[in-house]
């Protein structure tokens, strides 16, 4: 039975708490459309997030959502996916959640290649706590915690995620809704860990050049540059421009996706189960001495 599921079937009755004009509204709309295009019923989707403005997003969908603790969405999502590999598992959060407090989890989720889609709404500022420096804030940014301007070099999410070995890496902006929708859909379909860095403007605390109007003027689709998404080295090179250029599209897509961790785990289980394990009620016999 395959009934058509429209974008509205993924929309929950909860009203977002985001500021009017927040980029996350666009992300949410794109996500509804991408999920509809994929057509998995909402109850087969687990949508995991951390803490931050963008981490509220699971509640605005009809999927099973888990709005967890700050920075821990990836470990929790991996637990969900390994426990129930048949689910479509989506992870979302902000740049602070993913690259500051939760930064230690990113390389491990990637190297394991658990089949997750990780959407980071990168606004280069802490919005929920009202305007502090974030790990992707540009050097020199004046915020309430860097009143004289930041002395720190920002992390480059694209470059790090590529370097960790992610099989699918893309960047999107709500300034290009069709492009973002297509990228999210493609990420969801990629068999393995996929990452989309979404430059999602913070209308309240963000800089002028981070707003949608500026995005529209600045953005350069990678396809228009003739970039081949199968070329990992070229992707790394282009990713270095994070913070100066706004490239959109797929930086890298592994043309031969390796087996996912969840699939390998299932294979091993199947192998071991053929050995007919001792029934659970008799496990203690392993320690019996006579």
């Amino acid at each position, binding site marked *: 039975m395959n009934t058509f599921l429209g974008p509205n079937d993924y929309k929950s009755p*909860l009203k977002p708490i985001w500021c009017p004009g927040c980029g996350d509204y666009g992300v949410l709309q794109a996500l509804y459309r991408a999920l509809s295009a994929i057509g998995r*019923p*909402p*109850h*087969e*989707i*687990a949508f*995991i997030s951390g*803490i931050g403005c963008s981490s*509220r997003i*699971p*509640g605005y969908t*009809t*999927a*099973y*959502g*888990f*709005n*967890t*603790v700050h920075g*821990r969405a*990836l*470990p*929790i*999502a*991996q*637990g*969900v*996916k*390994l*426990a*129930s590999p*048949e*689910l479509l598992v989506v992870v979302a959060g902000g740049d602070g959640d993913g690259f500051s407090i939760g930064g*230690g*989890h990113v*390389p*491990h989720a990637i190297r394991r290649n658990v089949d997750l889609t990780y959407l980071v709404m990168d606004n280069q500022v802490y919005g929920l706590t009202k305007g502090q420096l974030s790990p992707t804030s540009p050097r020199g940014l004046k915020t309430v915690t860097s009143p004289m301007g930041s002395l720190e070099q920002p992390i480059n999410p694209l470059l790090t995620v590529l370097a960790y070995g992610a099989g699918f890496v893309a960047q999107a902006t709500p300034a290009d809704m069709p492009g973002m929708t297509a990228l999210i859909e493609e990420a969801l379909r990629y068999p393995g860990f996929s990452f989309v860095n979404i430059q999602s403007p913070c209308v309240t605390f963000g800089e002028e050049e981070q707003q949608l109007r500026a995005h529209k003027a600045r953005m350069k689709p990678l396809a228009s540059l003739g970039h081949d998404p199968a070329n990992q080295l070229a992707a790394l090179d282009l990713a270095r421009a994070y913070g100066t250029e706004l490239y959109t599209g797929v930086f890298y897509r592994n043309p031969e996706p390796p087996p996912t961790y969840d699939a390998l*785990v299932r294979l*091993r*289980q199947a192998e*071991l*189960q053929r*050995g007919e*394990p001792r029934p*659970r*009620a008799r*496990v*203690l016999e*392993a*320690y*019996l*001495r*006579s």
Partner: protein
Amino acid sequence: MLEDLVVGMVGSGGDGVVSAGESLLAAASSQGFYALMTKSFGSQIRGGESSCRVRISTRKVPNPGGVLDVAVALNWEDFRRFGAELPLGPDTVLIHEAKAGPPPGDLAPPGRAPRQVLAVPLAEIAKTAAGTDRAKTTVVLGALSGWFGVPPEALDRGLMKKFSQKGEGLLEANRKALAAGIAHAAAHPLASPRALVHPAKPSPKLLCDGNEMCASAALFSGCEFFGGYPITPSTEVMQILSRELPKYGGVVLQAEDEISGVGAAVGASFAGKKSMTATSGPGMSLKTEVLGLATIAELPLVLLNVQRGGPSTGLPTKPEQADLFQAAFSAHGDVLRPVLAPTSVEDTFRLTVEAFNLAERYQTPVVILSDQEIAQRKETVDQIDVSRFEVLERLRPTPEQLAQGYQRFADSPSGVSPLSHPGMKGGNYLAAGIEHDVKGAPTASGAVHAAMNAKRFRKLEPLQTRTDLFERQGAPDAPLALVSWGSSAGVAREAFVRARALGLPVKLLVPYLLYPVAEPVYREFFTSVRRGLVLELSHQGQLYRVLRMFVDVPAGMTSFARSGAQPFRVDEVLERLQQQAEALR
């Protein structure tokens, strides 16, 4: 004749004293004795000092034993490092490597020096008999067999098992060393003979340690997911489950850190699977935030904390009972998280099953507070009839509930609401660390928060009357009380038996449920009590203090507590009880 023998052996890493202890344990258990072995090391990975303590008895062994009956020292420097872990007494037979020289004068406190000291040229005997001094611990086994009646056939069978894979030469050499040790004992009889009585009827027993027992109970309980990070002294649980769980379709994730380990387990629980994590104090500190998440999202989770000395890195290889405050109280907000404590390898099984059952029934994280001694001591256990254990599953929504506007956090008289999981059509909801209404929608309403807190606490009210999670012995109206938990309870049990034999009006209470404090159980127990002790291995006496928080503890109840790595001895507990009994008059 002896019914109980406590042997302690100390050497440098590589001497093989632990391996000799294992041989002794295996030999004794194969002959139908009850036996128990603890190991203690410095924290070096290789080399350094190592020791073991083996207790062999015709009756169930409640603890590793206090003062040694037999002490074996291969050198004095290492022996000294174990101090109070291997106490000597006037009746201890002290056997030492002859070439180490006589025992230093300050080896034991005044009046505690062993009267019988036997210098044995262990290395020399080994060299002569086996051609290598590396067989000296096998000589020790032979001597112990000769002097204390450990059956030589069983030791020989042990050698067969151990060395048959390693070549005929090595096996033969060790057999010769064993025979030489026996011959030495025969040629040098003890001043007063001490030999073990043989058990009447040997029956097959289990031989395992607490971590093995815990992992087995997790498998028995239907655990499907384990997320964790290696940490002494709990790592063996993850190691065993890594090997076993996939056979049952389960998953073990060795995570990148402690937080990720518990996070993955909570994720798997959200996905509908029975989940577990294991750690020790430092890891528990890191996992705390995610435990709070499991509390508010009402997700079942079992967390094993094998306590070691703290704070911080503390004493990673030694036992302490100083994580009770942490287990019960490490949370922000109002949190009630059940804490269970096994007291032996055997009851680790039952309490692990109980932990899974409580977690699933009440949709909450549950902490099992084991400790290094229980977790890593190997002991004989009578076969456990597992058919008497019920395995509970979480309450899931019915098809009707799913079809008619399912409410994940619907309030109910018990506080428990049906828990759906991804994949279940109609059960879709938002789980969250943020406070939420009955449907899971985030809220900042004080009234909803109060109602949800009340619901989360109400779920656990039935624990107040779980008298089966307490062990009570002695006359109910006894005025003298002994209360103890965890590994110290094994010492308390033996002290209790001896105190009663001396005619002391004493009763014993061992809580397996530490938190929430089951107030009615303690109120009833303390009604007759005028004097007593709470025995535990922590500087602060954490159970004593927790009890005083919740219960009117009689003024005459005192804390007998000290820091870890200095296990209690039965004789000193008995002495304290006698003092308390005198104060009753």
